[in-house]
């Protein structure tokens, strides 16, 4: 029996998730705002019809759609629904890639005349079990399946199983609408008459490989119906972890800069513990208002997740990246060269410190019981207002187990 790939994609996922728990939002123009409360990160089809775009600031969106309702993001809730969606689609195939918070790829073996019914069954099952509307596209490869679901949105179920139908569909897509081909890549092949996705698959493979590297060549092959990008059933271990972001304005004062760096380090250590890894390398990125971004590395004798050792490394890293007097807009702390905590190689230069480890353990346990950052470094005191703000008690929208952001 032939093998096909089904792509399941939630329609306006964040908005749909808000509607699951608040029926009053159904049918209304709704937008979900991002972490700072200033930008639209998802919008309903009703709001899209008014011209509101993702990424647009709220003050622009408000002008276009004064009746629009704005909801605060709640990534924890979206994670709950995402896992429920995963459970719902798992009954249709054992081979699944949990691609992103609202997207799944399934490998299925079916006859061509069963595909449309199968797509509709997945769509209906997800809605019945989770109440989130999804669109399902089925095709010979994952790249084609994603395009099929794009054509069937919202709440569609569609299968395009043969070459003739694929070519008809590809002729309607600009090449930039293929996931993985942005404006820059498209510009490289434009001189050769490649405008649509159909032009792209008809281009010479050697030219595609030369101009768009192996990544473009793989897309070209997939769009021609040959599967080269396999479904990833398990997530590979993380290569690096970072924590950081905007400093809510600009920072010039070194005390305040240090407070942000330490806050992000404490968040980073939380994540290192969650993943059960230690950092082999530590770096701090400072983004300046003038536009430049500077990176400083901090020395680590051995891979570690100990606050005192990582703090020393961050101190050096900040000094290396800091331009005195220049306003900073973003501070990121990045842990690289991650290793599993168990079985790591020890170092002669780093003495074990049972006392400091005990302090770290108590800090973790108190925070787990009382609340996040109930015990935190005194260096973060200049940010007390931020810690008191309940709206700030969130972290990045990382839903465990998926592949893509």
């Amino acid at each position: 029996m032939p093998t096909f790939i089904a792509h399941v994609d939630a329609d306006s996922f964040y908005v749909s998730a808000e509607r699951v728990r608040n029926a009053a939002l159904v049918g209304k123009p709704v937008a979900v705002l991002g972490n700072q409360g200033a930008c639209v990160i998802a919008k309903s089809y009703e709001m899209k019809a008014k011209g509101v775009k993702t990424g647009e600031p709220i003050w622009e969106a408000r002008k276009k759609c004064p009746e629009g309702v704005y909801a605060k993001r709640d990534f924890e809730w979206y994670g709950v629904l995402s896992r429920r969606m995963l459970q719902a689609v798992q009954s249709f195939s054992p081979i699944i890639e949990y691609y992103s918070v609202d997207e799944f790829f399934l490998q299925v073996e079916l006859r061509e005349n069963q595909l449309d019914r199968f797509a509709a069954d997945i769509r209906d099952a997800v809605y019945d079990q989770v109440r989130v509307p999804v669109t399902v596209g089925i095709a010979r490869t994952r790249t084609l399946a994603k395009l099929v679901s794009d054509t069937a949105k919202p709440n569609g179920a569609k299968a395009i199983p043969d070459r003739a139908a694929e070519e008809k569909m590809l002729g309607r897509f600009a090449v930039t609408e293929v996931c993985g081909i942005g404006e820059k890549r498209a510009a490289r092949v434009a001189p050769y008459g490649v405008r649509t996705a159909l032009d792209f698959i008809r281009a010479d493979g050697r030219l595609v490989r030369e101009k768009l590297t192996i990544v473009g060549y793989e897309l070209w092959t997939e769009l021609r119906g040959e599967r080269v990008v396999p479904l990833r059933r398990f997530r590979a271990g993380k290569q690096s972890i970072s924590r950081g972001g905007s400093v809510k304005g600009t920072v010039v004062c070194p005390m305040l800069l240090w407070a942000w760096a330490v806050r992000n380090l404490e968040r980073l250590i939380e994540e290192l513990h969650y993943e059960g890894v230690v950092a082999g390398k530590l770096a701090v990125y400072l983004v300046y208002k003038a536009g430049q971004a500077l990176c400083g590395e901090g020395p680590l004798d051995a891979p570690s997740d100990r606050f005192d050792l990582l703090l020393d490394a961050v101190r050096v890293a900040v000094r290396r990246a800091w331009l005195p007097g220049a306003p900073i807009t973003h501070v990121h702390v990045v842990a690289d060269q991650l290793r599993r905590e168990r079985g790591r190689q020890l170092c002669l230069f780093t003495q074990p410190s049972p006392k400091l480890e005990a302090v770290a353990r108590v800090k973790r346990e108190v925070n787990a019981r009382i609340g996040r950052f109930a015990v935190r470094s005194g260096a973060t005191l200049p940010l007390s207002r931020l810690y008191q703000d309940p709206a700030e008690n969130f972290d990045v929208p990382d839903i465990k187990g998926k592949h893509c952001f």
Partner: protein
Amino acid sequence: MLAGIALTWSELPLDLIHAENLAGRVHERGGEREVRFYWYDYTPLLPVWYEGKLRILRWGNRRRDCRLPHTGCTRRTTIEGGGWAHLNPERVRVPATFGVDRGTWFTVKEGVEGIVVPDEREQPVVYVVCEPATEYYRLMTRSEWMPALLHQTI
């Protein structure tokens, strides 16, 4: 500061809509009717769960002849500091589906905190409890103060 709230039509009993003459406050959003209560209405009113039932009460005070504070909101710290103690305020829930502040409509889960105090004719008047805006709310609405939302943080 909170400029108004909206309550879906189905949340209000029909006899209350007729008795309080709320027809002029009915609007449509996304094909569904809702009743809106704005602070800048000629007669500002709010729905309130008071004395065991849903009632429509006068919202704050804009009348010069009334000795109650000339505002529609009161800070939580003022209540806790005893600023309203002489009027024996009663804590109430103002049900709402959406709230609006400086033109931004936001979702309300359970409602907004309020207090009810009597005016000089012993008629109940409701004031919305407010608190300093979270950073998120401040960016969203450009407002320094936000209504005290029940079991909800924006």
